[in-house]
């Protein structure tokens, strides 16, 4: 089903995450391939965020392995920071740096981590800002932006590192309804441009339109997955049917 896509980018092997006595992830094995847009859905508390955050080790797995571009990043000797530079992450609450201008938000990491010159980083930042139509906000501060604009800047900030994959954790859940569209549009643009994406979202329209694969998580496990057509047209798992009947 996923063989039509490129090489394996992320490979997860028997992943477990335990918080105290809570088994948040209960044995997940999965692969993400180049060019895929994988949407993860599931009820609240099913482990979607924990799974996504395990992919760049923001959440340290209790057990299991995560491979990124062929390297075991759960290995203690691996420089995780180098790998994270190639894995962009977008959060529900944007997490822009409030003490920095939009331009500084975008150029900070490329300048400090990729040793780009300020001019070079700025040039790239302005290109990206033009892409999202926010070039006139370059010198504004995050507090001067709407939620939708903040999230688009957060996406740009990640893109400035030229990541190989983008991870999204409910990027539109904190937005006013009228701002959801502009963020989804940008994400669709990225998907069409060939960006590999893993997206946790409740936006079923987005899943149907741009996902190459939809995953249903429940109780810390992947219970079902498939192409959007199969997934929404012919769900097999009982809990998934229940979930879909509630959400659609």
């Amino acid at each position, binding site marked *: 089903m996923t063989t039509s896509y490129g090489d394996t980018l992320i490979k997860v092997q028997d992943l477990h995450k335990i918080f105290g006595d809570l088994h948040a992830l209960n044995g997940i094995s999965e692969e993400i391939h180049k060019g895929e847009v994988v949407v993860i859905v599931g009820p609240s508390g099913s482990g979607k965020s924990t799974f996504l955050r395990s992919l760049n080790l923001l959440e340290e797995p209790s057990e299991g392995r995560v491979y990124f571009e062929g390297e075991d990043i759960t290995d203690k000797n691996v420089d995780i*920071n180098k790998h994270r530079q190639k894995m962009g992450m977008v959060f529900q609450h944007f997490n822009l*740096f*409030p003490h920095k201008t939009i331009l500084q938000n975008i150029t900070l990491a490329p300048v*400090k981590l990729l040793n780009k010159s300020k001019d070079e980083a700025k040039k790239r930042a302005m290109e990206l800002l033009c892409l999202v139509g926010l070039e006139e906000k370059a010198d504004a*501060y995050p507090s001067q932006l709407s939620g939708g604009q903040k999230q688009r800047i957060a996406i740009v900030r990640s893109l400035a590192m030229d990541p190989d994959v983008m991870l999204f954790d409910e990027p539109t859940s904190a937005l006013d309804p009228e701002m959801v569209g502009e963020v989804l549009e940008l994400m669709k643009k990225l998907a069409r441009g060939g960006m590999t994406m893993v997206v946790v979202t409740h936006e079923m329209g987005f899943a149907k339109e741009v996902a190459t694969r939809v995953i249903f998580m429940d109780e810390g496990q992947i219970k079902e997955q498939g192409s959007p057509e199969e997934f929404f047209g012919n769900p097999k798992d009982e809990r998934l049917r229940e979930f879909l009947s509630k959400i659609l």
Partner: protein
Amino acid sequence: MFEEFQRKFVNNFITSDRWQYIADGLITTLKVTFFAVIIGIIIGFLVAVVRSTYDKTGKLKILNALCKLYLTVIRGTPVVVQLLIIYFVIFGDVRDVSKIVVAVMAFGFNSGAYVAEIFRSGIMSVDSGQFEAGRSLGFNYVQTMRYIIMPQAFKNVLPALCNEFIVLLKETSVSGYIALQDLTKGGDIIRSRTYDALMPLLAVAIIYLTMVIIFTKFVEILERRLRSSDH
């Protein structure tokens, strides 16, 4: 009435250039406060970094325990006692140790404990999402602290830091316990010469009050500035 005042004023401040006790004392007080604040900020910063690194990552366990001990002892004992211990116990055998240096050390060491908690609360007040955003971009722990957390934390605590400076300024008035001639001691010396308590002590009080009012005003302006640039 006015002539009585004039006579007392001359006797307390002009005769034998007694005003110099006040002037020299003021300079000593400002010197001690200034350098103690610098030491306090350095110690406080280091302690706060150790404590919050331990809270966030579980590393630096032993250092963290030492810092906790330091905070407990310093905040649990009077500053005068600390001053006396440093002067008579730690430097007890050292002849001609500068009293100013002792006072700077005592007050700096003392202030460090309070500044540490100010810094720590500042670090804690920065949303954890900021830390995650930094780490997810590929910054390591130290870089995230340096470029993202600390600038925000520092801005949050700047008014509290200035208040600590004001507190310290007043606290140095116990320097007389080690016979350091600070502002308070200067007034007290005049009192012992003229047998007039009111005028020299009133002068001392007015000088402290004036400085505190000026610094408080400064803090208010700073707070307003910070709030208006609160991006």
